[in-house]
């Protein structure tokens, strides 16, 4: 075993690893998917797959909401930003996502007024301070960040701000999971459920996975031991032929989620009939848009955007990586044409993307494994 002193409770890690191995049926292969960028990060950074028997493969699903934004939508955002009357505001990890003509970062270098913000509330402040400009907030993220956007819209409404709107690209995790379950490409045995999304939506939304598809789900925390324990809980269910939703992260995730957060989302937003996800195609009821009552805060209502569907660059295999069909290193341009400095696709641009995570940690893991087996 490597890394015996790498993280706390290495003893517990090895114990869990042994129990996980003991639960594997001889000759059976197991594929467990996680759909949370933070989990991908932990798994690669601590080389958790090396603690698992060969029979278990961890597959990384679409856990990065930046990664699933199609290029056409990035182009729409760039079009909004290029309006001289607009100040575009965005989270940091959106800044380098490439559209057809570069990224926010590139546009900013050319003089476009695009400002990085930590919170949508910072964006609101910029609107108050610049009454002669229209301030647009690039709203991205799963249900983790949607409540914050929603609360900001409510605050803008309460203040009667005339110059603030959001370009809403919030996506919802459940339809993505369902699309993967329905996909013929992949046969999964269980899911490691996302941590922070679940603080908002709770654990009930995952019940359909167990009930209708017969796969167990364990909502997991972010530490290496959390993930190993969750894998153990999944394997225990599989060994007994059970399929249920369990909450390993109960110290942070309430079973019923956050009612205030869900109410804020429900008041200001509604589901789009369909939305395009990079790599997964069109998925129905998988993304949010601003409700008609709040149309004055909807950038798509105030401005017109090209709305052109743009295909990914030919070399880009982000779609397959996002679905978990390909591992990052199996992508033809991984590490060569596509690196964090020169990203082609979003899996590499976003720090939560599987490719970025693997680039930063995974290669070191494989090297260490090689060195360890050589010595």
């Amino acid at each position, binding site marked *: 075993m490597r890394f015996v002193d790498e*993280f*706390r409770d290495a003893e517990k890690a090895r114990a869990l690893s042994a129990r996980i191995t003991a639960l594997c049926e001889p000759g059976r292969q197991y594929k467990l998917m996680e759909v949370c*960028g*933070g989990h991908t*990060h*932990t798994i690669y*950074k601590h080389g958790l797959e090396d603690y698992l028997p060969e029979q278990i493969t961890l597959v990384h699903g679409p856990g990065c*909401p*930046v990664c699933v934004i199609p290029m056409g939508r990035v182009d729409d955002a760039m079009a909004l930003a290029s309006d001289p009357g607009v100040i575009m505001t965005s*989270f*940091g*990890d*959106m800044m380098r996502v490439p559209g057809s003509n570069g990224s926010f970062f590139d546009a900013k270098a050319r003089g476009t007024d695009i400002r*990085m*913000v*930590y*919170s*949508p*509330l*910072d964006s*609101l*402040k910029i609107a108050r301070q610049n009454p002669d400009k229209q301030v647009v907030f690039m709203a*991205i*993220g799963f249900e*983790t*960040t949607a*409540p*914050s956007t929603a*609360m900001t819209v409510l605050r803008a409404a309460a203040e009667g701000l005339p110059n603030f709107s959001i370009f809403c690209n919030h996506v919802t995790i459940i339809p993505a999971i369902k699309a993967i379950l329905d996909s013929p490409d992949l046969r999964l045995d269980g899911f490691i459920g996302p*941590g*922070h999304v679940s*603080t*908002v939506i709770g654990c009930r939304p995952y019940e359909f996975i167990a009930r209708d598809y017969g796969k167990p789900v364990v909502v997991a925390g*972010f*530490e290496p031991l959390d993930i190993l324990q969750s894998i153990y809980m999944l394997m225990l269910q599989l060994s007994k032929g059970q399929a249920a939703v369990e909450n390993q992260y109960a*110290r*942070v*995730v*309430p079973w019923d989620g*956050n*009612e*205030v*957060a869900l109410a*804020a989302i429900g008041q200001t937003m509604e589901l789009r009939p369909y939305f395009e996800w990079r790599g997964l195609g069109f998925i129905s009821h998988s993304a949010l848009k601003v409700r008609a009552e709040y149309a004055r805060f909807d950038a798509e209502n105030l401005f017109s955007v090209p709305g052109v569907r743009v295909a990914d660059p030919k070399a880009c295999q982000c779609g397959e990586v996002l679905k978990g069909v390909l591992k990052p290193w199996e992508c033809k341009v991984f590490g060569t044409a596509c690196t964090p400095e020169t990203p082609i696709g979003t899996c590499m641009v976003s*720090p*939560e993307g599987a490719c970025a995570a693997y680039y930063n940690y995974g290669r070191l893991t494989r090297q260490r494994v090689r060195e360890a087996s050589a010595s």
Partner: protein
Amino acid sequence: MCLGIPGEVIEFLPDQPDLARVNVSGVKRVINVGLLTGEQLEPGDWVLIHVGFALSKIDEAEAAAALDFLEGIGQAYEDELAALAESRIE
């Protein structure tokens, strides 16, 4: 962006019920605690913060563990802290 960072509640802003000043690894900033209205937050409580909003109330042990974990992440956490340091929502 998607990093949940632990912060300790220092005080509530008197004229704005949804806003609280928190301490995040020595950086003191104002965040919105409106999503935790049912929790009866008090100074000294720990919360998990995402993009300027407190998403969950956590105990001190969990906060310490989360901090440990984030410090292990390195650059992404530093970027998040730097972004928070720039934030002035009040």
